[in-house]
């Protein structure tokens, strides 16, 4: 892989001043979160967060550097078919998450007085095991995802500003840890809202500036369409048919696009614990309706823009240097968007883009650190103490959990190799969606769902996903090396199945066991379930 210099030409003093103003705003909002917080607010934000703040926070926590830089770069390679993922992000991640499942999540969460995702499931099924199990899986696997975001952010700082990777890593972690510790979830959501606003402004500017540069949207897409003859032979062999076309159906690129990205990330978002918990933070169900509108616009701008930019970057680099974007970026797709900013945008935009990137990374990391810390403090230690801990001690333990999460994430970030960002993200999304999506969504609709059914669904779905990642899905099994050890190949089965994301089979397995085991077992907490569904009826129109 060739190395490409994407360091931006910036004035260091101006950059430092901009960052200080940004940090000042973040510090102020964290402080605001703190003074408005009460005891349980640390975990759930006090359940009276305004809808716009909630929607921006959800979106900002959802969209990280990997969405802007990673997936944007991927669009430079795959093309505009990634737009299906943006649509899925809005339809599943916003509309269904807020307007359909969110209201029920909120109604059940309020009935059970649940403040975290593990607590929600545990109280819904009257099972301490579910709480410990869910929290433990989060504590073990979420730092992988957090490390992926942290690595992405640090690499961008390193490449754009020339800051040493280790310093960037330390600075990011410290910044996020401090304001999560200070403000709790309310502080996290206030700062997320600021960061979400910056992301919208940055993306809108990028899109408009790019279209102007390429002669308007119609010209830009016409040029991109005309470039289909330039698809490299090896990409064409893997199914690539041009940047304005889907890959060949059932080709390796097609499976990667639809099973890992559109299905895995687009649908898998419904079971992400740090996002699901956002629905517990608003005051009324009506706030979720308004949040759907704000969230829809936010995702449309912040997700669709990098995908369009990524695809169109081929036109820009081809016109400028006569090469495709991936070639211009030294075959490192993660460098495409930073390089595009450097070569296509005005110099002053570099400062603003830095803030957009900072915002995207920090907002996701803060939610992750908060979720891991609260899982450790509230869901493991406080639950184990069975009421013997005071509220103050619980918050203190959550804070210790956050510090531990930060340290573990930094450690993983130092140890994890290059090119791990997408894999770590997809593993975490896959694990949570495979194990938790079916029991979680069914718990909102089906009174007959039992504790045993939920546990069976979680355990079987998780096991199937882990087996898939370890042995069958080549992009992960090749890294773990177990398949190589057993069969001499990077994946156990070397046909097209090695490109199929484990979520495709783990989710149906989880659903199957959740339903079948529920049919053969009894509901052990019928009164609680009845109350939950009564409140769903009362609280939802």
């Amino acid at each position, binding site marked *: 892989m060739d190395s490409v210099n994407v360091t931006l030409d910036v004035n260091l003093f101006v950059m430092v001043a901009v960052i200080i103003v940004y940090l000042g705003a973040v510090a102020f909002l964290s402080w605001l979160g703190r003074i408005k917080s*009460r*005891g349980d607010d640390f975990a759930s934000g006090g359940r009276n967060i305004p809808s716009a703040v909630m929607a921006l926070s959800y979106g900002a926590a959802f969209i990280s550097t990997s969405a802007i830089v990673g997936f944007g770069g991927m669009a430079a390679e795959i093309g505009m078919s990634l737009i299906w993922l943006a649509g899925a992000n809005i339809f599943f991640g916003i*509309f269904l998450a807020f307007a359909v499942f969110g209201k029920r999540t909120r109604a059940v969460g309020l009935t059970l007085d649940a403040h975290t995702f593990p607590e929600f499931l545990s109280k819904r099924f009257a099972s301490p095991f579910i709480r410990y199990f869910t929290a433990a899986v989060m504590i073990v696997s979420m730092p992988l995802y957090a490390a992926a975001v942290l690595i992405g952010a640090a690499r961008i700082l390193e490449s754009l500003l020339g800051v040493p990777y280790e310093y960037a890593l330390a600075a990011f972690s410290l910044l996020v840890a401090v304001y999560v510790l200070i403000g709790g979830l309310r502080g996290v959501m206030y700062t997320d809202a600021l960061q979400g606003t910056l992301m919208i402004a940055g993306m809108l500017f990028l899109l408009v500036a790019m279209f102007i540069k390429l002669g308007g949207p119609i010209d830009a897409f016409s040029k991109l369409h005309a470039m289909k003859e330039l698809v490299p032979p090896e990409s064409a062999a893997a199914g690539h048919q041009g940047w304005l076309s889907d890959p060949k159906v059932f080709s390796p690129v097609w499976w990667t696009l639809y099973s890992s990205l559109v299905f895995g990330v687009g649908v898998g978002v419904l079971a992400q614990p740090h996002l699901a918990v956002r629905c517990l933070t608003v005051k009324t169900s009506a706030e979720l309706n308004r949040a759907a509108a704000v*969230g829809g616009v936010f995702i*449309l701008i912040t997700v669709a823009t990098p995908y369009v930019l990524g695809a169109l970057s081929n036109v820009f680099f081809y016109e400028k240097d006569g090469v495709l974007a991936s070639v211009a970026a030294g075959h490192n797709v993660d460098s495409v968007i930073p390089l595009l900013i450097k070569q296509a945008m005005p110099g002053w935009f570099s400062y603003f883009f830095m803030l957009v990137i900072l915002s995207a990374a920090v907002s996701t990391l803060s939610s992750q650190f908060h979720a891991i810390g609260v899982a450790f403090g509230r869901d493991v230690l406080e639950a184990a103490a069975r009421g013997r801990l005071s509220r103050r001690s619980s918050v203190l333990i959550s804070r210790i959990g956050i510090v531990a999460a930060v340290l573990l994430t930094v450690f993983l970030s130092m140890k994890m190799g290059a090119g791990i960002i997408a894999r770590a993200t997809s593993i975490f999304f896959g694990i949570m969606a495979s194990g938790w999506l079916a029991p979680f969504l069914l718990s909102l609709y089906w009174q007959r769902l039992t504790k045993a059914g939920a546990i069976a669904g979680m355990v079987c779905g998780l096991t199937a996903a882990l087996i898939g990642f370890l042995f069958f899905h080549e992009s992960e099994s090749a890294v773990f090396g177990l398949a190589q050890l057993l069969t001499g190949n990077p994946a156990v089965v070397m046909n097209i199945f090695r490109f199929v994301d484990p979520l495709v089979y783990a989710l149906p397995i989880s659903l199957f066991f959740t339903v079948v085991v529920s049919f053969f077992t009894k509901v052990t907490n019928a009164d609680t379930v009845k109350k939950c569904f009564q409140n769903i009826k009362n609280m939802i129109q």
Partner: protein
Amino acid sequence: MTGGEFSVLLGVIFLFASAFLCIVYGILNSIRRRPLSEKERTEEEKWLDEEEKIDDEWTGGV
């Protein structure tokens, strides 16, 4: 237009249709927001009242 290009076009339609759905749903439900039912109001007020009573341990009641 090839099948692959048509699929991308469908993707674009899906993207804007989803965004439009969110916006229309959000706006319509905000305009036609019914008052809280007695049962719902009581439930939420009860919960909020309870929260109010909790001592503010971080700020000493600020």
